[in-house]
């Protein structure tokens, strides 16, 4: 493939988005067709390009002022290629699924326009060759996410969730931007290639630890926001207000993983600061555990999956922090498959149940929706770490990394894995087994083929994804060779916690009408929203109130109007002086003359 064709990867989706927005909005079928076509074409292009090993195209200057240039440059190393295939592949599958899922929505054009915009932005992040370009597409995925979460903007909850997602991400981006600026300010470059070269040449070797730590931390901030790490994870569960394909594509498989991808991309920089790696690892570990705990006691099918996503993202970030970016990326890929699958399956269920999402109102879907059930089960098992399925391998790679560094994070990871298996079996038991608890559940029917086929495709990937050699590609040829020789301890422990988790879940939730566990704190998401409401949001409100008051009453009233009043006062004084009548005038006249005389006498 000629290298210049890579540009189509960006041009097709943005063209599709613009075309739909500007022209095709009234034509829903055409919009959908254009969007799906562009997604498909992108996937084909990606496969073709990767297969033929096409070189990256010539960069183009986007913004230039004196000697400062921002390039639109592509960087297509194995990391990017793997991610590209995952993004375009999963994206295409989900586009197809959406055809069915959104078939009866009046705003379908807008939906597909948003999806195309997202594909553009996400592809941009993947192929980006420098920090500013990453930041640009970073913001753009944020916006497409905002638009799609708020797709049903008539719902106040959706509009609120969209805002929350955008603003929380902006908080992360604040640090991200400063990190980029710091990198540029100290290393004087923005491109990943030159930066890497400089660092490998020892540019940071003599640096004090603090600036490098802050630099790495700044970049990590972006990932914290985008990949929903504690403490900025709060937006992701709310983002489930969007249509389910969006949740699958953006808020499970691809966009939220962009943070992890980016960390791997700049790992050469982050690894220069050991404290930063520690911070990253522990943030990831904490996220994994906290989210898994909360997931245990959620009742909304999508929210369980959302917290599970947060938890798995924490896993990946932890892997980066443990200096195992390949493991992180591996888990990212497998997670993309099975989490997309899980969401699509959940979408299939929701679609069939006419937008019922509470698992306690489901039940018995195993028989009503067999394909959905089996694919869901495949995904759930993969997520839970069933040996032989993709999730087992990738999760095990991460735990292995923790084991190698003898980090206490290994135990934390295992606990999380147990919880994962537990809540997934809980979800499957409550939603699919037993009897239907509501009429809608009892009357559910299998979804149409356009939705089922993507499920099957993803299910296959989830099952075999561990064996596709992705890990090898990511670790490089040499590392792949000695990857075989890992010990027995970690796989054994993994299997143990998997079995324990599934067993406990199946035992506890078999034929239940309501949740046997109370765990109010977990049900209330460990009060993150409440704490933020009482602190950050309240402080923001107070500050806004105060400065508004300051602006109105101090600056505007006191200074500005005060000046006006003083002027008016002087004017009135003049006026009243003028009211004294003719004799008064004579007196004032004489007084004026006396003043002049006095002045002359004093001089």
């Amino acid at each position, binding site marked *: 493939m000629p290298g210049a064709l890579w540009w189509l990867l960006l041009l097709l989706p943005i063209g599709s988005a613009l075309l739909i927005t500007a022209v095709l909005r009234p034509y829903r079928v055409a919009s959908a067709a254009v969007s799906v076509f562009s997604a498909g074409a992108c996937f084909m292009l990606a496969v073709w390009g990767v297969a033929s090993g096409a070189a990256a195209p010539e960069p183009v200057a986007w913004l230039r002022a004196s000697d400062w240039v921002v390039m639109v440059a592509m960087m297509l190393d194995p990391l990017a290629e793997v991610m590209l295939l995952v993004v375009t592949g999963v994206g295409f599958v989900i586009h197809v699924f959406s055809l069915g899922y959104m078939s009866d929505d009046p705003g379908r054009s807008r939906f597909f326009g948003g999806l195309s915009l997202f594909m553009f932005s996400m592809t941009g992040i993947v192929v980006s060759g420098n920090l500013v370009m990453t930041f640009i597409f970073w913001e753009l995925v944020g916006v497409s996410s905002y638009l799609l979460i708020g797709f049903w903007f008539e719902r106040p909850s959706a509009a609120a969730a969209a805002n929350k997602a955008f603003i929380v991400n902006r908080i992360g981006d604040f640090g991200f931007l400063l990190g980029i600026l710091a990198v540029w300010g100290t290393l004087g470059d923005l491109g990943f290639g030159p930066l890497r070269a400089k660092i490998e040449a020892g540019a940071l070797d003599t640096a004090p630890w603090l600036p490098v730590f802050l630099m790495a931390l700044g970049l990590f901030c972006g990932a914290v926001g985008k990949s929903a790490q504690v403490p900025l994870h709060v937006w992701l569960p709310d983002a489930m207000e969007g249509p389910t394909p969006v949740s699958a594509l953006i808020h499970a498989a691809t966009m939220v993983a962009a943070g992890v991808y980016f960390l791997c991309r700049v790992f050469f920089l982050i690894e220069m600061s050991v404290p930063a790696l520690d911070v990253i690892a522990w943030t990831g570990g904490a996220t994994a555990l906290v989210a898994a705990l909360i997931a245990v006691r959620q009742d909304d099918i999508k929210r369980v999956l959302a917290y599970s996503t947060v938890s798995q993202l924490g896993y990946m970030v932890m892997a980066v922090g443990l200096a195992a970016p390949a493991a992180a990326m591996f888990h990212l890929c497998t997670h993309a498959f099975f989490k997309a699958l899980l969401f699509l399956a959940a979408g299939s269920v929701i679609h069939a149940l006419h937008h019922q999402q509470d698992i306690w109102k489901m039940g018995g879907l195993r028989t009503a929706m067999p394909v959905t059930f089996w694919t869901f089960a495949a995904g759930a098992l993969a997520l839970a770490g069933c040996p032989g399925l993709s999730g087992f391998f990738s999760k095990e790679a991460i735990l292995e990394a923790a084991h190698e560094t003898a980090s206490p994070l290994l135990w934390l990871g295992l606990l999380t894995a147990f919880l994962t298996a537990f809540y997934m079996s809980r979800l499957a038991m409550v939603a699919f087994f037993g009897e239907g608890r509501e009429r809608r559940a009892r009357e559910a029917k299998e979804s149409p083929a356009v939705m089922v086929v993507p499920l099957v495709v993803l299910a296959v990937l989830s099952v075999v994804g561990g064996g596709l050699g992705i890990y090898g590609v990511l670790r490089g040829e040499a590392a792949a060779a000695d990857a075989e020789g890992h010990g027995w301890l970690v796989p054994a422990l993994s299997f143990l916690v998997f079995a324990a988790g599934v067993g406990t879940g199946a035992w506890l939730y078999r034929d239940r009408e309501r949740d046997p566990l109370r765990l109010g704190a977990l049900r209330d998401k460990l009060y993150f929203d409440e704490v933020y409401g009482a602190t950050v949001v309240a402080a923001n409100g107070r500050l806004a109130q105060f400065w508004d008051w300051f602006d109105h009453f101090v600056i505007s009233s006191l200074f500005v109007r005060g000046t006006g009043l003083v002027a008016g006062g002087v004017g009135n004084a003049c*006026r*009243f002086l003028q*009211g004294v*009548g*003719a*004799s008064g005038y*004579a007196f004032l006249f004489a007084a004026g003359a006396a003043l002049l005389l006095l002045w002359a006498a004093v001089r």
Partner: protein
Amino acid sequence: MSPGLLHYLAVSGLIFLIGLAGVVVRRNIIVVYMCLELMLAAGVLAMVVFSRFLGQTDGQVFVFFIITVAAAEVAVGLALIVALFRARRTTRLDELNTLRF
């Protein structure tokens, strides 16, 4: 001791100030007007004195101009005061207060 220049000047200045005070203090327009004439007279006195002491006649000629102008001013002024009295039945300055502020 014969009165010197400064004595005359002092008298003239006093007359000027008295006139000024009258203008400021008095409320009757005619009286005020007379006080104005008093001030002019102070000027006239000074002029004549200086003319005398300088040994010139310029100043004394100037006095005639002053007197003429003052006469014209009085003519107009009295006409105005009469008109005012006709219109308002008053010659008091402090009752002229339509134009204020």
